[in-house]
């Protein structure tokens, strides 16, 4: 019997796949993203060291690399420090043709909340936003109707991962078709995920 078809190995596989880490953890993901955004870009020196470790070592390469590294380290260390990371571009709404339903963060209130815009496209008498940020209460965050079947609202959210959906005509819960689906919607129905980044 091959390992691929071995029942015992199959049980091991299922057991290991069901490890606690197999379910998404919004807080952990938010923590990772925070670490990523806050992490400084590696300096040129670090890049050179990493490149050195990745390269097969020969005496000639060692000599050449050491010389180059020393030269850069002593002569140009200050000049080659990484530039400040460009400020995040605050996006306006994108092309509605490509993403007729989209989520756009556009301003940064002083209290750390991020004003986040949601857009829904479709025929409806009323649309409101429900999610973990308003305890999934319909009517708390109504969308305003625009031209062309577009509905929009902007609400202040705390940075992190949020799950949301649209409540259409007070009865139908609709996940945002253009946003990633949430596997952990606390409303018991399909939800969507929006990542809100601190400014």
């Amino acid at each position, binding site marked *: 019997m091959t*390992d691929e078809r*071995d029942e*015992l*190995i199959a049980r*091991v*596989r299922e*057991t*290991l*796949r069901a*490890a*606690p*880490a*197999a*379910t*998404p*953890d919004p807080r*952990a*993901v938010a*923590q*990772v*993203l925070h*670490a*990523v*955004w806050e*992490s400084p*870009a*590696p300096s040129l020196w670090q*890049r050179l060291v*990493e490149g050195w*470790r*990745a390269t097969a070592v020969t005496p000639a390469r060692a000599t050449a690399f050491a010389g180059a590294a020393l030269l850069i380290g002593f002569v140009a260390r200050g000049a080659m420090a*990484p*530039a400040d990371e*460009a*400020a*995040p*571009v*605050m*996006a306006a709404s*994108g092309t509605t043709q490509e*993403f007729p339903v*989209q*989520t*756009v*963060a556009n301003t940064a209130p002083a209290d750390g909340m991020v004003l*986040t815009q949601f857009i829904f496209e479709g025929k409806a008498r009323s649309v409101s936003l429900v999610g973990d940020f308003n305890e999934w209460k319909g009517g708390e965050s109504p969308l305003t109707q625009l031209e062309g079947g577009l509905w929009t609202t902007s609400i202040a959210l705390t940075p992190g*991962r949020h799950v949301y959906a649209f409540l259409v005509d007070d009865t139908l819960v609709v996940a*945002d078709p*253009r*946003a*990633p*689906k*949430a*596997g952990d919607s606390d409303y018991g129905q399909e939800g*969507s*995920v*929006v*990542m*809100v*980044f601190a400014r």
Partner: protein
Amino acid sequence: MDGAVPGDAAWRGSGTAGYTPRPVLTNDTPTANTSIDPMLPLRAKAGDRQAFAQMVDLLYPRSLRFALHMVGNREDAEEAVQDTFVRVYHNLSRFRDDARFEPWLFRILANRCRSLMEKRRRHAAVVQYGDVPERGNAPSETAERDWTEEIYRILATLPAEQREAFLLRHVEDMAYEDIAAVTGVGLSALRMRVKRACDVLRARLSEVMQNDR
């Protein structure tokens, strides 16, 4: 090297911090072995933070699971995964457009796990999962839990290179070609590592089952 990436192009720093907070369309919910939309890494590489966030959201569970099985405790696993995503973010410019993202990610992650295991070797023999799900006290549930813990124990005793190859092949469902890209080891050696890991698991678990009868 921890952040080694195949097919490096010239590094251009992290000045692509542009943020387009636009949800990225994906076909899958974040299930255990979700593959990401191949456009996501390219968009992240172009500076789309939302795309990168989406990749983290989708791949965090798999990454943490792999790291947890490799290093054996959650704290180190979380550290390895976080460090991996930081490195991935700062090296996106070196990711080849025609490459597949998961092997690239897992290569960096596997390197981070190896480094952590080396750094904390004194803990290597201690299984510290610590969070095997509580499933009640019914005999069948207790037996299931014992079985799970037994698998964790045996897995932790495997040589790291066998454990790594086994996890990538049988838990992460990677093709041997992709595992070769992750580990830098030849296909025949990889097959041998997986086979040996399977042999040990099979023999030890068979013993456990015999003793339980």
